[in-house]
């Protein structure tokens, strides 16, 4: 009898034993930092001196800070514009390139290239192209008779310039994923639609889009989160400027944490960012998942 119970306990514990290594990593690198960040956000600390508990002061001063609200506005502007454009362009590219011809296979690899180049290299290339006096963009603008634009130095265009960079980098990856989703739609559905006298536009909106909706759902979510985390381009190209016009939450956090050494305040920003991503994800799943067709 005792023997049996022992064996039973052993077999109950086995699964836990098997996931322990993964759980250790998960706790060490995910749970602990999150908890520690929340903990830090209640303190005043400059990384060297003593930690001083100040309760919710970091939060209240943050929400009272007009700079924070500018940063929030920038973050959402960047997120909505870049995700919208990435999805739009990727969809157009995918529709154009989804047939597996030789030239399309080549083009598919070509448009994927930006995705594997690091943001640092891309930022430097674009920095040069955005250069007002001898950059490539202004060269072309002047050629077609439009006066040159001070891309990164103008508060109106700086954010749009950053959006251009991240869209350019993201389109290839998204396009490939959409292409594979389109190619997975069984061809008989298109044939049935053809027999149902559906024109090309209607087939696209009534068949193609609904059929790839799970993929689009995934891509929008991933892109939203990626865009919220954008950092390198801002750091290398604008440093959040001019006049805070390109400062997003992540950069704001970085600035407070590693330039001003206000670790508590930066942690509070981090908590806001985390909650923001969490809320977005939940809303997104709640609202949209019902409209998505899963096989």
């Amino acid at each position: 009898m005792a023997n049996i119970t022992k064996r039973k306990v052993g077999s109950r514990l086995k699964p836990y034993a098997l996931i322990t290594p993964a759980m250790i990593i998960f706790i060490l690198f995910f749970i602990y930092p999150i908890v520690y960040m929340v903990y830090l956000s209640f303190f005043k600390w400059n990384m060297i001196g003593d930690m001083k508990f100040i309760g919710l002061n970091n939060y209240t001063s943050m929400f009272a800070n007009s700079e924070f609200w500018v940063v929030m506005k920038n973050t959402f502007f960047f997120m909505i514009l870049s995700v919208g454009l990435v999805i739009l362009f990727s969809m157009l590219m995918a529709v154009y390139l989804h047939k597996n011809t030789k030239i399309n296979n080549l083009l598919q690899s070509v448009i994927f290239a930006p995705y594997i180049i690091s943001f640092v290299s891309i930022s430097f290339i674009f920095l040069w192209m955005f250069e007002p006096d001898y950059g490539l963009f202004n060269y072309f603008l002047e050629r077609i008779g439009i006066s040159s634009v001070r891309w990164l130095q103008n508060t109106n265009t700086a954010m749009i310039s950053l959006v251009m960079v991240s869209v350019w980098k993201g389109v290839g990856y998204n396009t490939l994923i959409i292409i594979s989703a389109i190619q997975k739609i069984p061809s008989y559905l298109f044939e049935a639609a053809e027999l149902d006298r559906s024109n090309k536009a209607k087939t696209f909106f009534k068949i193609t889009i609904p059929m790839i909706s799970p993929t689009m759902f995934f891509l929008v979510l991933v892109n939203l989160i990626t865009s919220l985390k954008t950092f390198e381009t801002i750091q290398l190209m604008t440093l959040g400027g001019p006049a805070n016009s390109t400062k997003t939450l992540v950069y704001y956090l970085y600035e407070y944490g590693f330039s001003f050494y206000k670790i508590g305040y930066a942690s509070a920003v981090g908590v806001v960012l985390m909650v923001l991503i969490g809320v977005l994800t939940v809303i997104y799943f709640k609202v949209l998942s019902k409209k998505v067709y899963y096989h």
Partner: protein
Amino acid sequence: MTPKIELKGIKKSYDGNPPVIENLSMKIMPESFTVLLGPSGCGKSTTLRMIAGLEQETGGTIFIDGKDMKHVEPGERNIAMVFQNYALYPTMTIRENIEFGLKNMKVEKNERFERIKQVSEILGLSEYLSRKPAKLSGGQRQRVALARAMVKKPAVFLMDEPLSNLDAKLRNQIRGELIELHKRLKTTFVFVTHDQTEAMSMATDIILLNEGKIMQEGSPIEIYHNPQNIFTAKFIGNPPMNILKLSDFSSEALIVPEKTAYIGFRPENVVIAESLPENREGITFKGEIVTHEMLGSEILYRIQLENESINAKIYSSKMTDYSQISVMVPHEKLYYFDTHENRIFS
């Protein structure tokens, strides 16, 4: 009467490969239930898809109602197709599935509603209209596919093995429903299948294809009782016709037409007995029963002769045991074929 659909000298090849269909001509009569029958790869589905316009013919012309269809879009051919896997739009409800074609045809809302109501009543789908296809069983999906075709009131129904994904019982049931439907709608049905039972049970006309060529056309009765070649004889009937080489027969005096190379007879025309009957009005052999299968009303025997084995179907409630027996086939039940496997009419 002008044929509803006519194929003239159709050729079809897929880029670079030898043609699947070299030179195919056929006529499909109005209001017929025509079955394109043949083994897999014989070109029957390709033919159907060319009629639908989903596949472009490499050569030749397809006429529907006497009009050349070369530059007519599939949607404009006044046809509807039922696909093997139904091809329902998975993201739409059953109603939307049925309605999609009507909307594209710019049928008015009231009329759409009426027509959907009508077909869903006929096919017993009324209660499923707001569901998605994934929530339906195979048989129900099949009916939705039919409804989607019917609601457009096409002049021709094209069906590409629509029953092959259903279980045997459901297949029988839908077979019956299709026959009724054909009677009721009085339109042309073109039905592709590799299943001779399906073809025999539903068709008014069968077109038997092999390797892109027509082996025989005719009514089920005609094609069963009058096969023009060994291919037809063996394809139609279950089990198939027994075909024996003339050289297999012993020297016994057998009167056969000139040039006969093969002799055929249907399993159900075989008579077995323990010993040979006195008055021999047919050919006889000795053989041994190697298997017997009780199928209900009939018993199926496999009989090993000297060189070949044959099937015999006996309508009797008494099972003959594994034993040596005599086999007799009446003369009038014999079919003769020449060396090219074509029928010799005696």
